[in-house]
């Protein structure tokens, strides 16, 4: 953190373009702006090519002998497999509507972070190899030769894209730079060029079941401790079960929610809710990760990790799956899971056992988002809520990129928030819902070595929070994403000190009046902060 400039001097106020064209514009692997190279042991664990010790700062990346061939063949194959890629390679008119829509460009001013130029990094190679004009006219047609320098540049810039899809909302043709980034990363992966952070998480997830590699018994212990905390605060002992066959529902949350602050409060909220409504559910240690860093490596890796969800649901014989608050997990569940690992014909169409609501919108995938589930409970008056218990918070809501632009889940979390707290303020219109800004750390970039770039990328989001902080005194940024809960607190500390981060179900847990609490009066919220003002008059 020490090398990171102060917040008021990080971002330049004007976007200046270099004089010389971008084809060979130099860039530098500067600390804080790039990801470390992948450790060979993860390559071995995951059967990935070219295991070796390497660093992006090395002159020689030890690429395979025939790296060019591999890369071009990989591109050819993907052009044949993805219509999206072909079309996105061909139809950009370089109108620039997407240019200042990318948080990394706004925060860094680096032209290669403009989505259309990011895409040109790949497009220029595509033109050279697969179009007549590019072959004959070269540079004039926007074609470049594929060199090792290009590979390095791709690594640098395709890992400065969080696959957030904001650019695709504004593009007249729906060109989705995230899709291009996903495929470019896949191509780099063919050469054994991956980031260490992502691969470490993936290999943990693959073998142990979750990103940080918590073994099964430790999961039980960790969650048991959260249950102790709940008991301390509410006097109620909740008893989640693990790997239990015959439960009605399998609940899968991002692992960030049970091992890291402030996600744990959200997890406590889930557990309290399930206890209160008497849900017949089980957790799984095998499928103990909702998140899927495979998405940030390749489609194949995404599938390899995602397979556990259905496999575990089948093994345990549950009726349907309930998913916790996580962003990219829901991108995978909503857009890929059924196609990749379905059909889920061994499950039933989800029905809320409490309200009887049939979740028709999930009738094929059979997995329900927890805010869909909880909003339905609230709508049917199944929960006793005391929103005054959140009175110390002035709350705003950050739409996480994936649930926003790959799903469209806007109202469900807001409905819950409005029912569990009394001070809710929206950020400016251009920064929420489908136009929401990324936290700057998505798509596997939430590591320490990338901190400067994360602060830059998170600048537009933080700036909008600052706006509501100054205008309404907002002090709590809520979200439905575990990565956000990990990434936003340092972002807030850097740009908008005084704003904390929470999940929606933490707020719910605070407000939830549990039957088993009886007459006992809660003295603290889930964070252990005293609930002074509400005092003794909290029964409604």
């Amino acid at each position, binding site marked *: 953190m020490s090398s990171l400039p102060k917040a008021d001097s990080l*971002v330049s*106020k004007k976007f200046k373009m*270099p004089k010389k064209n971008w084809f060979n514009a130099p860039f530098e692997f500067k600390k804080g702006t790039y990801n470390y190279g992948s450790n060979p042991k993860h390559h071995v664990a995951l059967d990935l090519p070219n295991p070796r010790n390497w660093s992006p700062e090395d002159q020689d990346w030890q690429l395979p002998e025939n790296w060019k061939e591999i890369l071009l063949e990989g591109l050819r194959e993907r*052009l044949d497999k*993805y*219509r*999206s890629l072909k079309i996105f390679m061909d*139809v950009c*008119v*370089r*109108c620039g*509507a997407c240019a*200042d829509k990318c948080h990394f460009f*706004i925060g860094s001013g680096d*032209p290669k972070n403009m989505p*259309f130029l990011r895409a040109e990094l790949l497009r220029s190679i595509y033109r050279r190899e697969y179009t007549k004009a590019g072959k004959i006219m070269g540079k004039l*047609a*926007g074609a470049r030769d594929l060199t090792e320098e290009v590979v390095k540049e791709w690594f640098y810039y395709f890992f400065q894209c969080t696959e957030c899809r904001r650019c695709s*909302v504004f593009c*007249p*043709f*729906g*060109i989705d730079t995230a899709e291009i980034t996903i495929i470019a990363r896949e191509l780099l992966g063919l050469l054994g060029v991956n980031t260490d952070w992502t691969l470490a998480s993936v290999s943990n997830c*693959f*073998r142990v079941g979750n990103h940080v590699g918590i073994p099964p*018994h430790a999961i*039980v212990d960790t969650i048991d401790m959260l249950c102790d905390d709940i008991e301390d605060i509410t006097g109620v002992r909740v008893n989640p079960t693990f*790997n239990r*066959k015959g439960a009605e529902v399998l609940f899968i949350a991002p692992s960030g929610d049970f091992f890291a602050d402030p996600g744990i409060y959200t997890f406590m909220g889930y557990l309290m809710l399930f206890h209160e409504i008497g849900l017949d559910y089980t957790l799984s*240690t095998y499928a103990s990760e909702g998140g899927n860093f495979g998405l940030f490596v390749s489609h194949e890796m995404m599938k390899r990790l995602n397979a556990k969800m259905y*496999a575990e649901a089948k*093994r345990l014989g549950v009726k349907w799956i309930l998913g916790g608050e996580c962003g990219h997990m829901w991108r995978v569940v*909503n*857009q890929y899971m*059924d*196609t*990749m690992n379905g059909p889920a014909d061994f499950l039933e169409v989800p029905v809320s056992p409490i309200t009887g609501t049939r*979740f028709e*919108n*999930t*009738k094929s*995938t059979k997995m329900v988002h927890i805010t*869909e589930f909880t*909003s339905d409970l609230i*709508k049917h008056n199944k929960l006793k809520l005391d929103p005054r218990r959140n009175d110390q918070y002035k709350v705003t809501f950050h739409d996480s990129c994936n649930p*926003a632009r*790959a*799903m*469209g*889940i*806007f*109202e*469900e979390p807001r*409905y819950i928030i409005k029912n569990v707290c009394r001070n809710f303020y929206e950020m400016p219109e251009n920064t929420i819902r*489908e136009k929401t800004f990324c936290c700057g750390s998505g798509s596997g970039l939430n590591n320490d070595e990338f901190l400067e770039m994360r602060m830059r990328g998170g*600048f*537009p989001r933080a*700036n909008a929070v*600052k*706006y509501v902080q100054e205008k309404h005194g907002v002090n709590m940024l809520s979200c439905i994403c575990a990565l956000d809960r990990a990434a936003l607190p340092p972002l807030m500390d850097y740009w908008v000190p005084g704003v904390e981060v929470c999940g929606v179900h933490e707020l719910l847990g605070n407000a939830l009046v549990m039957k088993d609490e009886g007459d006992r009066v809660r003295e603290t919220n889930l964070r252990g902060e005293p609930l002074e003002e509400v005092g003794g008059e909290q029964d409604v």
Partner: protein
Amino acid sequence: MGVGFSLLMIVLLVLIPFLGVYAGLEYVLGVVFPYLAFSIFIIGILYRIICWGRSPVPFRIPTTCGQQKSHDWIKADPVENPTTAFGVILRMVKELFFFRSLFRNNKVKITEKGHIAYIWEKWLWLAAILFHWSFFIIIIRHLRLFTPKTPWLVSFFERMDGFFGFGMYSFYFTDLLVVIGLAYLLIRRLVIPMVRYVSLAADYFVLFLIMGIAFSGILMKYFVRADVAGVKELAMSLVAFKPVVPVDIGSIFYIHLFLVCALLAYFPFSKLMHGPGLLLSPTRNMANTNRMKRHINPWNYPVKVHTYEEYEEEFGKVMQAAGLPLDKQS
């Protein structure tokens, strides 16, 4: 980059027909090139679309720009986050005819105090709409040349468009608008640093080419009159596949026609395919029925997974110690 090169190309493209008429090559310019260019245009577009279509759409990846359909008491956005074919069609119509997504455009400005302001910026949208619609109406108006009787649609557009005509001189509004639209698109490309930085020769080339077409057309209509009867005779003979080349139509006409031929022939191999491309763009033309209906990936293949058995094999002991149920009793 490439402004000079593109201009040079246009000058060359103008010189060819100019010299051609001198050399008496009217038949080549008036018959061979148009047939050739039109064939390339049609076959090229079909080829490109088939080429795109041959790649499957493995995943359903719409960019959702509105509330999803979940509970019936939450109002879903049936167009920006469609779940029905009708919704998708509406979304596409909005994109195709009104450039919906471009209309979202705004401009980021960081103020002195370090606040980000999102500034109103619909000029690109406006210029694009002006240009495309005018261009479209102009093309429709041209159909008059190819039919003995003017079809009603064509005369309808003519009447709307020529509303401001006065006296002997008809004046078409779209002629002005298309030039304004093009000029704006060109100027912004040159002066907005971010756009200029990424622009390629091809980006300027099409703009110059279409401007060339527009200017030669305007010249011909309002200033250096060409022999309209002769033009019509040629046009009708072309569609009847019995080409006749009337004499002395005027070189300005051949310049206009040649530039059009160049555009037609260039079209399928350039970014001008963006119109057809939008129709096939998976982030726009798919319904977000993701969890309702399984989407099939034709090349879905089995992958190496870590099975529960392998997991239990490794962790069985600690799981048992932690009181977790096991599949295999050992």
